[in-house]
């Protein structure tokens, strides 16, 4: 499949750049960190300084190092859960869309059940109950509960694709069912799968951080949510130690923004109407400003005044 390369818009470039930064930190974080994040130091609860860029905790630990090292856990769980959830979503959603009758309906019902049941309480309960969960187990739990949105989306798309002539033509040609699903239908779904993947990664990141914040045990040593957990526990707010919890939150927000900017880009490829379409207010030849409406182009007459005087309605 040939990809048409087009200059990505500003939004998408910014998003990709941010994501690249985070990935880099995730891989090299421990090497880059100036201090061991768990090591206690002498400067207790200090604000940002030359020595500690993000300040220190109540035990003298360097917050900057904690954030750097914690990036790996966040990115790993986020992407691992995202991949797992997307794989399940594709399997369930496309099958539910392609199969008719009871099989398709029941798969669809299963995914609807998972959508409606509130995710966070369920995840909290399961991770709490399953003993000794590490990063991998957390990613597995999040992946196994967060696939439902994507499955529903893929099912709807598959249902509509199934009716299209080229699928019927492939059948009439004698193509086998699994080949039709894999090579005719799936390639048309790539944009949606990518978009759903990114959405799921965002969900997984937020959920993992929430879990760490709340104190669900077992997540790896350092993690942005863990930083916030300690900040909350040590009453950082009332102590005025804003530097303890601001960086973690900002990182989450930046990562989320990067992902949704990339999502915008994918949306715009799929639905060209969504692109920010240049200027909406343009100047007509006689200097008036006209607002362009979506859906039709107004015809601008050069001689507006003259026509108002004349009486003929027809002609033009």
């Amino acid at each position, binding site marked *: *499949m*040939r990809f048409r390369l087009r200059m990505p818009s500003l939004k998408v470039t910014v998003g990709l750049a941010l994501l690249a930064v985070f990935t880099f930190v995730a891989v090299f974080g421990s090497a880059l960190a100036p201090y061991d994040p768990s090591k206690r130091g002498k400067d207790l609860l200090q604000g940002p300084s030359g020595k500690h860029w993000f300040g220190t905790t109540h035990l003298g630990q360097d917050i900057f190092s904690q954030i750097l090292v914690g990036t790996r856990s966040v990115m790993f769980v986020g992407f691992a859960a995202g991949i797992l959830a997307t794989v399940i979503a594709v399997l369930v959603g496309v099958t539910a869309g392609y199969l008719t009758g009871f099989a398709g309906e029941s798969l669809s019902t299963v995914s609807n059940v998972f959508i409606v049941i509130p995710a966070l309480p369920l995840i909290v309960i399961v991770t709490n109950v399953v003993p000794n969960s590490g990063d991998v187990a957390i990613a597995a739990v999040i992946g196994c509960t967060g696939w439902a949105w994507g499955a529903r989306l893929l099912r709807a798309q598959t249902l509509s694709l199934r009716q*299209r*002539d*080229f699928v*019927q*033509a*492939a*059948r*009439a*040609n*004698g*193509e*086998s*069912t699994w080949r039709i699903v894999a090579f*005719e239908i799936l*390639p*048309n779904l790539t944009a949606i799968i990518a978009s759903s993947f990114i959405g799921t990664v965002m969900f997984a990141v937020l959920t993992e951080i929430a879990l760490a914040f709340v104190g669900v045990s077992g997540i790896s040593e350092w993690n942005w949510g863990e930083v916030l957990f300690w900040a909350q526990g040590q009453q950082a707010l009332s102590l005025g130690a804003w530097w303890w919890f601001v960086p973690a939150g900002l990182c989450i927000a930046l990562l989320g923004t990067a992902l949704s900017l990339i999502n915008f880009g994918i949306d715009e490829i799929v639905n060209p109407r969504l692109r920010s379409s240049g200027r909406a207010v343009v100047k007509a030849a006689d200097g008036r400003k006209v607002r362009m409406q979506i859906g039709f182009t107004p015809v601008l007459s050069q001689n507006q005044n003259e026509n108002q005087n004349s009486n003929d309605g027809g002609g033009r």
Partner: protein
Amino acid sequence: MSDTAPPPGAVVLEAEGLTKHFPVRARGRAALTRTPRVVHAVDDVTLALHRGRVTALVGESGSGKSTVARLLAQLYPRTDGDIRLAGQSTAVKGGRAFKAYAKRVQMIFQDPFASLNPVHTVRYHLTRALKIHGKKADEQGLRELLGRVQLTPAELYLDKYPHELSGGQRQRVSIARALAADPEALLADEPVSMLDVSIRLGVLNLLRDLKERLDLAILYITHDIASARYFADETLVMYAGRMVEGGDSETVTQNPAHPYTRLLVDSAPNPERLSAVGDEDEDDLGEPPSLIEPPSGCRFHPRCPHAMAICEAQVPVRIELTDAPGHWAACWLFAEKTDDEKTDVETADADAAQAETPDAETPDTETTDAEKEQEVVS
């Protein structure tokens, strides 16, 4: 063309009493009480495709002609009737049996853009078509296949995507894809309806050429009876799921017997008939009927200027006509009667002038609902 039509070759594919009813989902209490409703899309269709012959199936939208094509391609199961491939009765659903069937019966679709997968190149489409049926899919084979549909030089087309081709080129690629299997029968569902008028002739000529060189049996489905006269050896007319007339193309188009066929022929633009506008009292009052509850007896009787009592009561049978061999019409006008009912075409014509305009049938509920929908949404 049909004056010197070659004698019909062997029967490749035939249908007998083919019927297809689509179930309609019953809502609410109706699901429990009423008998399930069905759309009578195709009822009792009998036709035969011969080697080296084009059979046209003419009808308006909703007449069931596309359904017939899909039934013959066995894309979905039939409700009743028989399909015979080279004399053998066949009913395949999928798997190897279906592939073997598809090797001998292929289909071309109406919309050239929609029938090609937008993410695959021409090369992919044709390679798959060849490989499925165990043929070699090398450069040589692809080039030869494209050559058959007059898309040369092949290099120009092989690596293009569907949106980079014109409508006529896409349709030729679809034809090439169907030919890859070396079929005996080709089912063409309105192959030129969505092409520019200027290109249609080229594609039809290509099909005729292929028919002669490869000795194919072609089913040509169309709503344009004029093109049937040009292209097909035999013409069959369908209305509301049933067949109403059949015979060789020249006779059916020049001497239409069934009132519906006459309506079709009259409505084709004809510069020689300028006086026809507004003259006759024979204004057609209608649209095709609802197929969920079709009219009893002859389905055309609500619109027919010659409707009689029997037309509402009994479904007409095929009646052989005397003007040309093989010409038949399913119309009670041509039945043998003991009383003074006229039987041949000319006198029926004379009656037309004196016949009273038929009752306007209340438009079916389906359209009213659709109109209501439009109103609410807007």
